[in-house]
């Protein structure tokens, strides 16, 4: 197993957060983490990314414990819902800064610019870009270090139809490269089209973990998400 999560817990006020949760993930899976707002999806993602420290429990990625941040960041890339880039600098500057910090050669920046159709925007400041373009830069930055696991928190939030389609294409390409992907989502069509496995969180607890086919036939889907 590539990822092992054991009793991972993080609780905030009013019982929000993530109740003790356990699961394991094989290499190359494309997992949709589904749930209402406040279900604990982002908390799970942020804990796996090292943004939030768990109250309890343990997780390993390729045998490396989460608390070993220096080693984990080489394995995991996290794309948050709101792109966190240096707004006042150009696309190229942002990518080069992170390439330097990842100790990746600058030639990789050109590759990413090409792969993500960002060559014509390389000298544009981030603050002048649309949300979709910012998200592309954000994903490109995460892929600079070539991590084996990618976490996407609400990747299509705020994107229009065309940009959402473009992002699906990107996710599929990344998955085809053999990477393990987690993404949180509200949209059934997103889950149907992309995921190879569905995990449903409700009030901080994992209430379903299975294939998309089983999910759409399950009581969980009918009770919680079907119109």
């Amino acid at each position, binding site marked *: 197993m590539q990822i092992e999560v054991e009793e991972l817990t993080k609780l905030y006020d009013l019982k929000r957060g993530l109740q003790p949760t356990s699961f394991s993930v094989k290499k190359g899976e494309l997992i949709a983490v589904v749930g209402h707002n406040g279900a604990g999806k982002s908390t799970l993602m942020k804990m796996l990314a*090292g943004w939030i420290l768990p109250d309890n429990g343990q997780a390993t990625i390729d045998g490396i414990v989460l608390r070993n941040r220096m080693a984990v*960041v080489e394995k995991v890339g996290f794309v*948050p819902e709101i792109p966190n880039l240096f707004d006042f600098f150009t696309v190229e500057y942002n990518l080069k800064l992170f390439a330097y910090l990842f100790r990746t050669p600058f030639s990789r920046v050109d590759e990413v610019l090409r792969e993500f159709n960002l060559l014509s925007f390389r000298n544009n400041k981030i603050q002048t870009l649309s949300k979709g373009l910012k998200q592309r830069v954000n994903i490109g930055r995460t892929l600079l270090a070539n991590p084996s696991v990618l976490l996407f928190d609400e990747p299509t939030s705020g994107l229009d139809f065309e940009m959402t389609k473009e992002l699906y294409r990107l996710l599929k390409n990344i998955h085809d490269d053999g990477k393990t992907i987690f993404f949180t989502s509200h949209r059934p069509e997103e889950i149907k089209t992309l995921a190879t496995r569905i995990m449903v969180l409700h009030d901080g607890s994992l209430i379903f973990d299975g294939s998309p086919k089983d999910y759409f036939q399950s009581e969980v889907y009918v009770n919680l998400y079907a119109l």
Partner: protein
Amino acid sequence: MIRNILILTLNDLAIAIKNKSIYLIIFIPFFVFVTLKLIDSPSIDEIPVKIGFIQNENYAPEIMLTVKAAGQIIKVTWVQDLQEGVQLLKEKKIDGVLLRNTNKRDSLKLLVLKKESFHTIVIVEKFLALQKAAEGYRDAWISDIEELYDGGIQRQALPTWILMLVLLIGFIILPAQVAEEKEKRLILALLQTPIREVEWLIAKVLTGMLLTLVAILLLHILSGFGVVHVPSYMAFIAVGGFCFSAFGVFLGFLCRNQASARTLGVVFYLPHLLPSALSDFSQQLSAIAPLLPSYQFYGPVKTILLEEGTIANLSFEWGYLLLVGALAFYLSSILLKKRWLMK
């Protein structure tokens, strides 16, 4: 239209409350009130002044008699010569040295560190009061005042400007920058790379130190004032830059956004600036100011710039600043590790 304006005004006020800017409206008047209370010294007569008299100097007998009779309010220290008097003055063991004014019969020349200071005012006032009691109004005994600090008022103001710059960078610029990086989750993006938390912290503190250095260098270039003991001066600028930059980074960690960081910065900026900068003018402030890290920076910078002091005599202050900076740095590193207010 009026209704919309009212609603928008109320909304702006709510934002000011939410981002804590409103606290400054309460804090600044309160702070000014407290400072004014400390500056205004109603019992100036009760404060004894320490005056150095030079042995073998031919002082007018009626002056000496009156001074001796006023032993409660004027403490006399006899010094061997002017050199010893200057030394005691620099060490702040006495407030002034009285010399016979060779240009005017039966009058005195007062030697002080700085003309525009609280101590000089007290000395002159006390001697005027003594003279009035002894002989009624005549020509003032103290007919001339000479100051030890050279370079005039502009040079004497230099330490205050330097303190302002260092505190501005430490308490206003850096906390806002750190809070912005937290607010926009840029720190978290940087910590998604294999950098150590301590590297990020050191970079922030170094930025503050570099900004401090550049600002002070520009100040010297533009004002044209040089420094005699450059290594000592550099050592204090470096340790002051470190201390207040680390302090500023720590303040930034206590805030969720830039607006609250600016508010908190001002709350720290004014109490660090004013008591130290005004300590020359108030006995009470000069008693409180040494408790602040800013005074442990301001005092030595003043000594080095105006009295040609060196770090050899200022090691306590240097160590104190280093310690405060190290403590702030350590606390910041704990908050960074805990991802404080960065969810």
